[in-house]
Structure formats: structure tokens, C-alpha cells
């Protein structure tokens, strides 16, 4: 690794960390009741003189902010893993229909439990979401065996997404009135309503899965060359692919369980990180995607809350505005490279 590169890496990480801190505090300070930066800082530790500030920060803004951070990081890593797996830069949990599969199973579980008066624990939600993710993932892997074209694979994923969403809509339409409000909010995607217990579950899943993904950096780097080369270099392809499917599904399932489907972050953030750091080395891009995803999701959540306050936008509305153009940029870049290759 030469010196120019290390400087770029250091600068990149510094920038990302500064952005994360800035958006973290903005998220605590901004809202329907304005809180001063100093108050917010003390509020984190429950030490503000104003008791209501303590409550707002600790019970509402801080959990929501941490949720945005963790889930943003999880989505981005999940996206990066999927991109490596399919060798396709526009793969991500949302476009491949993995989020929608999770959404469907979670919606079914919610309706069933609400009907029977069972209160769902976050662990059950995550499990349901994970099962949904795996079903979609399995379908898309089967399809990927038949289609090698990058656009076709994505179209297949989008179609799976539509089918799952349609079934979800159908289920929601026929659900009891009481359920609808709950379900509707969730299925639109939002970081709101996260409590401290949720955070704990999130923290366990996201941190352990992300750490595991980071430990996969070496075989991922070999896998980027293609399967035959990776196998020759000593990667146990079968085991590696299984772990990759497991981790990417679990990370995206965790996001869907707590925040509903969140669009485009999984594609856009890893791509922006590759551009920022000028490399696709997993050892750099995995941690960068995590921090970058956290910053982007906090920014998008801030916009979702503040832009038309007190009306709140769904998180996907905001992320789509930022993410979709990135997808177009990726395709333009690919075309340009094909042109001169």
C-alpha cells in the first residue's frame, strides 16, 4: 500500500466520522421542540437540568438516532456483500426484493399475532423478517443461476419485490382497522418508535454480523476476481457463499424488522464509498460502508422528520431521492468502461 493511498484512506475515514458526529448531534438537537447543543449533550447522560429534555433525548431522539445509525450501517454492508456475491454493482437488499420478502412475512406475522392478541417481541420480528429475506434470497439465487446479465437479475429482483409488496398490500387491506395504522406506518419505512430494548437487539445483531463481515474481507477480496480464481487461492467457495448469504440476509432482515423496507441505501452507500476511497478492497469498504451508511441514514432521517414538519416523510422517500440517481451513475460509468474496453 503506497503512501498516497494511505493518506486518502485516512482522510476518507476522518471525513466520514466527522459527518457521523455532526448528523448525530443535529438529530438530537433538531425537532418539534428545539434543544440547545449543550442541553442535548447533557441529555444523553440524563444530566440536563430540564427533565423534559432528558425524556425527549433519552426516550425518543437518542434511540431513533442510534437506530438510524445501526440500521444504515447494516443496510450498506448487506448491500456490499450482495454486490460481491452477485458480482453486480447494482445489487442490494431492496432492488433484489429481499426487503420486500421480509416485509411480507413480517406483515403476516404481525396480523396473525395482533388478531390473537399476542405482543410481538423484537426477536420474533427479526426471525420472521430473516425467514422472509431467505425466501427472497433463495428465489433470486435460483434466478441468478439462469441469467448472467446484470440488468436482468435486477429486473427479476424488482419483480419479486412487486409481487411481495402486492401480497402485503392485499393482506393489509383485509386486516382489521386496528391493525392497519400499525402496519401502514411500518410498511412505509421509518426509524420512529424505536425503544431501548429494540436498540439492544439491533446492537447485538448488527455489530456481530458486521464484525463477521469484516472478518470475511480477505476471501471477499479474492472472490471479486471471480469464483475460479478465488477457489485456486484457497477459498472454500461453498462455505463462503453460505456465510455470505446468511450475513447479508440477517443484516437486511434486521433493518426490515425494525424500520420496514429502506430503499437504495444498500446500493448507493457502498458505491459512494468506493468512489471516495478509490478502491473496492473489502478491508476498507466494509468499515467505510458501515460508517457512511450510518451518516447517510441519519441525514435522511433528519430530512424525513424536518422537511415538512410536523408531517413526517417515510424514510424510503428520502433515501430514494439520493439513492436512485447513484444507480443511474453506476450504469453510465459501466457503459463508459465497456466503450473503451
Amino acid at each position, binding site marked *: *500500500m503506497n503512501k498516497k493511498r494511505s493518506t486518502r484512506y485516512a482522510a476518507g475515514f476522518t471525513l466520514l466520522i466527522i459527518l457521523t458526529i455532526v448528523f448525530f448531534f443535529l438529530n438530537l438537537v433538531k425537532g418539534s421542540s428545539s434543544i440547545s447543543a449543550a442541553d442535548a449533550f447533557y441529555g444523553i447522560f440524563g444530566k440536563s437540568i430540564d427533565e423534559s429534555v432528558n425524556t425527549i433525548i433519552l426516550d425518543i431522539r437518542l434511540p431513533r438516532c442510534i437506530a438510524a445509525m445501526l440500521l444504515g450501517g447494516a443496510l450498506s454492508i448487506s448491500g456490499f456483500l450482495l454486490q460481491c456475491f452477485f*458480482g453486480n*454493482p447494482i445489487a442490494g437488499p431492496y432492488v433484489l426484493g429481499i426487503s420486500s420478502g421480509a416485509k411480507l412475512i413480517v406483515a403476516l406475522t404481525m396480523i396473525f399475532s395482533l388478531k390473537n392478541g399476542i405482543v410481538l417481541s423484537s426477536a420474533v420480528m427479526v426471525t420472521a423478517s430473516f425467514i422472509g429475506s431467505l425466501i427472497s434470497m433463495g428465489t433470486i439465487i435460483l434466478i441468478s443461476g439462469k441469467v448472467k446479465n446484470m440488468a436482468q437479475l435486477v429486473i427479476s429482483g424488482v419483480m419479486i419485490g412487486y409481487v411481495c409488496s402486492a401480497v402485503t398490500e392485499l393482506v393489509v387491506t383485509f386486516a382489521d382497522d386496528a391493525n392497519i395504522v400499525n402496519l401502514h406506518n411500518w410498511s412505509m419505512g421509518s426509524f420512529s418508535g424505536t425503544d431501548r430494548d429494540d436498540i439492544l437487539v439491533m446492537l447485538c445483531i448488527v455489530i456481530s454480523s458486521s464484525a463477521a463481515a469484516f*472478518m470475511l*474481507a*480477505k476471501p471477499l*477480496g*479474492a472472490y*471479486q*476476481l*471471480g469464483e*475460479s*480464481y478465488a*477457489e*485456486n*487461492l*484457497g*477459498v*472454500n467457495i461453498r462455505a463462503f457463499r453460505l456465510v455470505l448469504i446468511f450475513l447479508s440476509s440477517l443484516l437486511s432482515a434486521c433493518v426490515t424488522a425494525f424500520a420496514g423496507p429502506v430503499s437504495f441505501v444498500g446500493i448507493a452507500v457502498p458505491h459512494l464509498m*468506493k*468512489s471516495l476511497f*478509490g*478502491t*473496492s*478492497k473489502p*478491508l476498507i469498504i466494509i468499515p467505510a460502508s458501515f460508517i457512511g451508511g450510518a451518516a447517510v441514514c441519519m441525514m435522511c432521517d433528519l430530512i424525513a422528520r424536518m422537511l415538512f414538519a410536523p408531517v413526517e416523510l417515510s424514510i424510503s422517500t428520502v433515501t430514494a431521492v439520493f439513492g436512485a440517481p447513484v444507480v443511474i451513475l453506476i450504469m453510465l460509468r459501466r457503459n463508459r*468502461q465497456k466503450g*473503451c*474496453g
Partner: protein
Amino acid sequence: MQDNAAISAENISVGYGKITVAGNITFSLNSGEILTLIGPNGAGKSTILKSIAAQLHLVSGSVYIDKREISSMKERELSRKLSLVLTERIHAERMTCEDVVATGRYPYTGRLGLLSSEDIRIIDEAMELTGISYLKDSDIKEISDGQRQCVMLARAIAQQPKVMLLDEPTSFLDVNNKLELLSLLRKLVKEKHIAVIQSIHELDLAQRFSDKILCIKNRKADRIGTSDEIFSGDYIDRLYGISSGSFMNLYGTAEPAAVSGEPKIFVIGGGGSGVFIYHKLWRKNIPFAAGIIHKNDIEFPIAKALASVLIDENAFEAVSDKTVQKALKIMGKCSKIICCPEQFGTMNAGCIDLLKEAQKCGKLVNVEDI
């Protein structure tokens, strides 16, 4: 099996599951030697390479590297002994050529794949040896096909293998790049003591650059030998089942089959002067006769392949009267005559008689008039 062989195969059969694609393969190869697989399309050359790389299970038999059977090796052990250069393109984004070469160090690095200063030295050396140091920071997708093959070769060298497998390394390259790549390969495997097994479609290159050639036909190894053993007689014609032409061992190239029928044009050739005319007449689908060509003339194999009638003379002998008479007889039946050589010497003085006769009967035409 030779004791000092870098790699050897004992009666292996390769294929998918229990279905054999190619069998009966036995060879042994020393460090610094190149074994080339040739044979018709679909003969199973790639399957053989994949099986030697242990990416496919052998149907039967064993492959040994350094006397160790490959199926008994751990992934890491094998990856330190065997490296690959494949035809598939690399799709990774934002990977510099240096990054690609660095992946060769994978079997030697720790859990996170961090490179030591020794690794970096080996990577730099590999790029130096293949002459791609200047591409260090270039994106792997933005370089030419020829440059990319050199990068892949550097990557395979950085892996410090005992054995290197190359699957059609020269496909897609232009003639200069083909020669450069294979010359480089020859030089490097000697220096680094690597045994090379490659598959190649270009027979002329296989003939020139291989120490041993293994021919695959009809689901089995048909013949193994040195270049002069394989490129002899009509073996290549039989190996590929060439029905519409013939292979010329001396040049390593093939000529199409002659246009059949009574010759309409007589070409006085010799010394290579007639080659372009032969090709031109062949393209125009005109049967022709050629003479008088010595059997050791540079154009003899081509004239033999393309002319419907060939009048020849024994090597190093002056053209005899008998041969001239024979040629005049054929010439009489042709409606046009072309004379290619600009001068004649003692050995083909007989051709002067042909030229004189042609001028006399008024059948002599220029090349452009055909």
C-alpha cells in the same frame, strides 16, 4: 512417474460426476517445462485444466505435485503450489493492476490479508518481470487485452507456484502480444522453475513454444510427445479431422483443399514467388497447375495443397528434361499461363523453356488479368 517431476498425472480421467470427458491421460513434467494441450473444440482441454487445479474431482487416476497427491492437500497447501491464468474477464470495480497482482499473495497472508513488506517486494518483482510496473495504478478494466494478460501472468507469478495452468492465454491477443506473452512465459518459467500446463488453439504457437504437447481426441489422450514428434506426417490432419484442407507442419499453418477439376491456368512458380497467385486463384475457384517446383522449395507445401496438378522436381536437382516435357504437356491443356519468378538459375533452368513456349503460343498473361 519420474522422480524429479514437478507435476505428473497417472492415467487420469476427467469429467463431471461419473461422466468422463477425457481419459487415459498420463504425463510428467519437470520444472521449467511447458506442456501444451491441443485438440479439437470441445475435446475437454479446459476440463483437464480445471481437474488438475482440483476444481473438479477426477473421475479416476491421480495427479501429483512434488510427489504429493493433490486431492490429499489442504486448500492452502495447494494454493501455494498451483496458480491459474484464465480467459474470463475480471468484473471487479475499482481494482488497480497492483491490487489484482496482490491477490496472488492470498495463500501467504494472515486472517485479514494484510501484506507484509516481503509480500510487497514479491508483488513489485512480479510486475517488474512481466513489464507492467507502469500499469501499477491503472484500473484493471481500462487496460488492453494484451496488458491484462501480462497482469494476470504477474498475479500467477506472485503466487510463487510450482505449477502454473493457463487456459488459452493467447486468445483475443494480436500477433505481437501473442509472441510477447509466450516469450515472456518461456523466460519466466525457466527463471522461476515453474512447470506450465496450457491449452492453446494456435497450432503455430503450440509448435514453437512447447516442450511437450498432449493431444486430446475422442475423449482420450491420443498422443504425447515433443513438437517434432507431434507435428509430423499427417498427424495434425488426423487429430483435427481436417477434411477441407491440410496442415503444413513446417509452417504450422493450414491451407484449404485444392479446387478440383482440369487445370485451366498454368502457374510457373518457384522460390515463394507463386504463393500469392495460388491463393488468388483459389479464392476465384479456378483449378490450376503449378510447376516446376522443387520438393525443398519454400512454396512446395502450399503448391501441393492448392494446385490440382503439380509438377515437381527432386530436391537439390536441376530440372530434368523429362519433367519439362511433362510440364509442357499439362501447359498445352491450359488456356492461360502466368509466370511468377523474375529470374531463373541453374537449378530451374528448365522453367525457361516453359516461359519461351508460353510466349510462343501467346497464352502468357499478367497476374492482374486473372
